[in-house]
């Protein structure tokens, strides 16, 4: 929000350099996002009247003007088109300096002397563009220093207002904080003394005192805690003074017409939204009420709004005239012919106003201000301020104020009387400082708090420190000690009305003191209490090891969004459920929570492939959201293109082996973590994978995941033309399968004997089922067995058979084995497996 420093200075005598002020405000919670200095170089501009305009003798496009500043006449040559005799204009005389720093000198234009220049708004730094010379109102006094008169020299602070500081959305609010920070007095604005009238009323009914008064009634006390209305008459076609226009402009508000300008001016100044109805169009009394279901209202933006019960409206005898706190109605809109207005100043419920504004998609400035919570005590003052300005500037007649109060809703703010007990010792402990009583209480008083030192909220008013009547002791939070409520370190503070929606506890009071005194002065330290680790991060250690393993094996990490597109769900045959579908996605491509990481990886492969990166290995740790289960963490990876074969040596190029290579890496990764007895099965019946090159991975007790070649149909769907091998494992199942730290067992040191065996097996018999029989039948003496050859030959074995060669290692821990013992064990073993499997010994 933009604030004029000149305007702020009407409330507080702040004279520090603007950059210094900006920094101090920023460090006090009013973040100055920019400072614009206006007219800093301007000087020597006066107001003059054009007495005559004559043609230039030698130039068609120039004219020669005689201009008076009230005392002296000056001849000025200009090329301006928009001037006429009698116009009052800003004039820069020789020696004057324009906004861009240019100094005006007496000169000759085509032989005619010119002693100055008529100025446009651009030359005076008021606007970026101007159609011509700035024509001033006729009553602008001649000869005055125009820079001072029109307040052209200013600094505009652009301040980011925090959501809880609705009170700072006004010049007054900013000035108040400045007064607290710099320990300066805060001045009052001039207002009309409404108490001089007799129209004051409270409660649900209104009264009129004069003929042109308006009455108002509050039938929605829950929605509107305070409603005021008054009539202001005879304001027809009064021009807004230049200085006021100027202030509106620098604050980012366009001047429109006098009444609107004054209400906007007071809005900016005091933060209270105001609304003016054309009095001649208001029928009868004003009523604040809840809308009826289906009631219609055409708002100022010419939209017809269908209202529902619970939305607060302002109505007259003929129906709704405004959507309370949000926008006025078209029927009672003021225009150029308006002479009398009804001025509304009110306090509408923040929650209800927000709901109404949201329902109608009308987040107006007014609605946003009501939402943030306004100062209910400032409502009448704002009305009186408008009344004062209109009366003093335009001589209008101001009617008595009619007031109809309601009550604030049952919320923290309303049940709260604004009184908070503050134990300064506890406060100092919370912040870690040693604020003195003077420092703390003084700061609060400047912020508008009432501070009763040595008093608590229960002991009523009037008790002073050291009175000796009562000493209330209690055990407090941070202190666990008796607090002497009569000490100067204890006070009952009364939160100012404009902060009651925000300051609800002593911690907020602490924040207020801290931000004004400054956070710089707090001496920092590391946490003092002993260090406690809340969780053993075994998981973290294991995950980090898994991460390092894949990095070391050449895989690069990717991080994708947790959501994919509806399209991906279709491509991957997922059923999407409500609990996994975003109701307000930004784009269809990010609308469903992923069930597996696979589509995210295929997207990356597709992305890389389209950028000529045709091989690689990537992995991702991330969340997955099974449609029928809880959110889980998976680790998935893909190897794509000829990444495995990317060697330049012919002997390393082993095409087609990539699924088993990937399996080798995944199993090694699991083994490295301490997952024992990894089981891989051939079955894997889902459409993601090649039906003949896919498997499941499990530990002894848990299914861990799957791997295989990605199904060509999936690759096609993602526009991928290189082969992709993939694995995806459930990290929590892996963590559950990690065995505890290994324990040493003695190993045999006596010589071992190896016996090899080659068997012919049907091709469709899974290796894993052969292996499991081998392990089952294995005699105790056989310590180890492994596959060392695999051989296919249509010629020798037939198309449906293959040969596997195993080595069996026999060893006894106690004695050196003799051939006889080994032969006996081996023969029995071979017989057992031949009986158990459809195989032949070669």
């Amino acid at each position: 929000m933009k604030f004029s420093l000149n305007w702020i200075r009407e409330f507080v005598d702040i004279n520090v350099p603007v950059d210094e002020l900006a920094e101090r405000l920023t460090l006090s919670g009013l973040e100055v996002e920019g400072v614009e200095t206006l007219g800093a170089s301007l000087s020597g501009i006066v107001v003059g009247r054009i007495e005559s305009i004559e043609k230039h003798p030698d130039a068609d496009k120039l004219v020669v003007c005689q201009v008076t500043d009230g005392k002296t006449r000056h001849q000025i040559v200009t090329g301006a088109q928009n001037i006429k005799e009698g116009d009052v204009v800003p004039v820069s005389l020789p020696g004057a300096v324009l906004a861009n720093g240019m100094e005006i000198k007496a000169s000759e234009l085509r032989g005619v002397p010119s002693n100055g220049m008529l100025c446009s708004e651009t030359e005076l730094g008021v606007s970026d563009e101007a159609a011509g010379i700035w024509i001033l109102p006729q009553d602008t006094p001649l000869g005055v220093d125009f820079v001072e008169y029109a307040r052209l020299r200013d600094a505009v602070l652009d301040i980011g207002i925090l959501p809880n500081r609705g009170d700072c959305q006004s010049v007054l609010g900013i000035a108040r904080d400045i007064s607290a920070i710099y320990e300066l007095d805060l001045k009052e604005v001039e207002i009309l003394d409404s108490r001089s009238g007799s129209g004051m009323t409270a409660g649900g009914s209104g009264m009129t005192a004069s003929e042109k008064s308006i009455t108002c009634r509050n039938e929605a006390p829950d929605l509107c805690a305070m409603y005021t209305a008054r009539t202001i008459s005879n304001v027809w076609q009064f021009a807004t003074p230049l200085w006021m226009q100027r202030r509106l402009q620098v604050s980012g508000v366009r001047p429109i017409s006098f009444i609107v300008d004054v209400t906007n001016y007071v809005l900016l100044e005091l933060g209270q939204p105001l609304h003016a109805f054309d009095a001649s169009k208001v029928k009868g009394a004003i009523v604040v009420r809840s809308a009826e279901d289906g009631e219609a209202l055409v708002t100022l933006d010419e939209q017809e709004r269908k209202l529902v019960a619970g939305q607060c409206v302002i109505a007259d005898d003929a129906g709704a005239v405004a959507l309370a706190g949000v926008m006025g109605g078209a029927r009672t809109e003021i225009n150029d012919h308006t002479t009398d207005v009804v001025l509304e100043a009110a306090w509408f419920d923040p929650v209800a106003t927000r709901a109404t504004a949201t329902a109608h998609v009308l987040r107006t400035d007014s609605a946003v201000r009501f939402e943030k919570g306004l100062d209910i005590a400032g409502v009448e003052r704002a009305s009186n301020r408008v009344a004062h300005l209109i009366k003093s500037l335009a001589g209008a007649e101001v009617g008595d104020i009619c007031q109809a109060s309601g009550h604030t809703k049952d919320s923290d703010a309303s049940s709260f009387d604004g009184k908070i007990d503050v134990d300064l010792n506890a406060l100092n402990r919370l912040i870690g400082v040693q604020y003195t009583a003077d420092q703390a209480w003084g700061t609060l008083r400047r912020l508008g708090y009432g501070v009763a030192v040595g008093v608590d909220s229960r002991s009523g008013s009037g008790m002073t420190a050291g009175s000796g009547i009562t000493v209330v002791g209690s055990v407090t939070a941070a202190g666990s000690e008796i607090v002497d409520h009569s000490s100067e370190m204890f006070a009952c503070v009364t939160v100012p009305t404009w902060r009651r929606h925000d300051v609800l506890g002593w911690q907020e009071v602490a924040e207020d003191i801290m931000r004004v005194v400054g956070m710089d002065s707090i001496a920092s330290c590391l946490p003092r209490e002993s260090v406690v680790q809340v969780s053993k991060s075994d998981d973290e250690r294991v995950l980090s090891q898994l991460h390092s393993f894949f990095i070391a094996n050449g895989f690069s990490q990717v991080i994708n969004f947790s959501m994919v597109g509806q399209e991906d769900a279709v491509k991957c045959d997922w059923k999407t459920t409500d609990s996994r579908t975003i109701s307000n996605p930004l784009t269809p491509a990010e609308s469903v929570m992923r069930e597996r990481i696979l589509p995210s990886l295929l997207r990356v492969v597709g992305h890389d492939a389209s950028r000529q990166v045709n091989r690689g290995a990537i992995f991702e740790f991330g969340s997955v959201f099974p449609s029928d289960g809880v959110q889980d963490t998976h680790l998935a990876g893909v190897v794509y293109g000829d990444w495995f074969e990317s060697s330049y040596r012919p002997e390393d190029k082993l095409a087609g082996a990539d699924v088993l290579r990937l399996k080798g890496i995944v199993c090694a990764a699991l083994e490295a973590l301490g997952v024992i007895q990894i089981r891989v099965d051939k079955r894997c019946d889902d459409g993601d994978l090649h039906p003949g090159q896919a498997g499941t991975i499990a530990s002894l007790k848990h299914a861990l995941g799957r791997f295989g070649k990605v199904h060509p149909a999936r690759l096609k769907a993602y526009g991928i033309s290189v082969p992709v091998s993939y694995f995806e494992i459930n990290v929590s199942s892996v963590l559950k399968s990690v065995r505890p730290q290994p324990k040493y067992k003695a190993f045999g040191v006596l010589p071992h004997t190896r016996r090899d065996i080659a068997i012919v097996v049907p091709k469709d018999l899974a290796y894993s089922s052969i292996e499991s029989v081998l392990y089952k039948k294995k005699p105790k003496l056989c310590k180890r067995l492994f596959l060392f050859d695999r051989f296919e030959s249509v010629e020798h074995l037939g198309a449906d058979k293959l040969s596997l060669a195993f080595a069996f290692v026999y060893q006894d821990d106690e004695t050196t084995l003799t051939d006889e013992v080994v032969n006996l064990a081996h023969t029995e073993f071979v017989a057992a497996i031949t009986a158990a499997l459809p195989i032949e010994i070669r």
Partner: protein
Amino acid sequence: MISRLEELKSKCETALQNADTVSGIEDVRISYLGKKGVLTDILKGLKDLSNEEKASVGQAANQIKTQITDAIDAKRHALERDEMNAKLVSDTVDVSAPGVGRGSGASHPLHRMEKLIVECLGRIGFSTVSGPEIETEFNNFEALNIPASHPARDMHDTFYMKDGGVLRTHTSPVQIRAMQTMAPPLRILAPGKVFRCDADVSHSPVFHQIEGLLVDKHVSFAELKGTLEFFLRSLFGDSKKVRFRPSYFPFTVPSCEVDLECVMCKGKGCGICKQTGWLEVMGAGMVHRNVFKAVGYDPEEVTGFAFGLGVDRLAMLYYQISDIRLLYENDARFISQFKGAA
């Protein structure tokens, strides 16, 4: 006899000189020192000699046997060395050719950044906890003192699931879960993905946060300040200026924002810091009493501080990444730049 031995020795030396292979040497050894070798015969015949002769001839024979043995060994070693050298010459590999293997992969910069942060704060006792990305409105908002009507909900453009769940807008709900299940004292970090329903050139709808929480008796704002100064200076350098500005968050009071001296221009003012010389990098504050109440902690008994930061933004500053979209495109040419230990 002695002269026979001398003759034998010189014959053997000649034979050795003529032998130019290891097997040739072996032949020489066998013919002189083997079971039926010439010298062996002589030594066998010693027993037939007189005692006097036995002593003198025996000594000479043994001496010659030693000399021959040494000569054979020396010659054999020389030949073996020559043979090995010859083999090595023919058996070379140009080791300057590319190694066979796939090299190292790279860690995503967000992961690296997160790791640096977690490790840094781990040094002063913070450990990590995690939680789900789809949260309840209670954990994401209500428990954090953000009721439905609170204007602060405007600060969070929330993705809702069709069944009413929310994609967490910050990792603070992880802290709620931690406090609901663990008694104080607590010193935790909650890293993870968060989701906001707005995206433009500088915002991604998904980004990463790390939030920290310390709860104990008598925790002060001064300790929060010290912790964050330690953290930022550990990461960006001891000489970096850090400043604290009052701010507002519904779940902390007092609240502050933390600015770091611009890492690009060192505080002089540049495009990255919008000419201010400062970068806003963290939000923090003392945990709000209503948050403690929501999780069943007694705000009269404990105080605490919380802080949060955007990992993406910090990573962009740390690694000088110019466009946030690079972080989620996962382009191989981008990721591959981040090799090595984080």
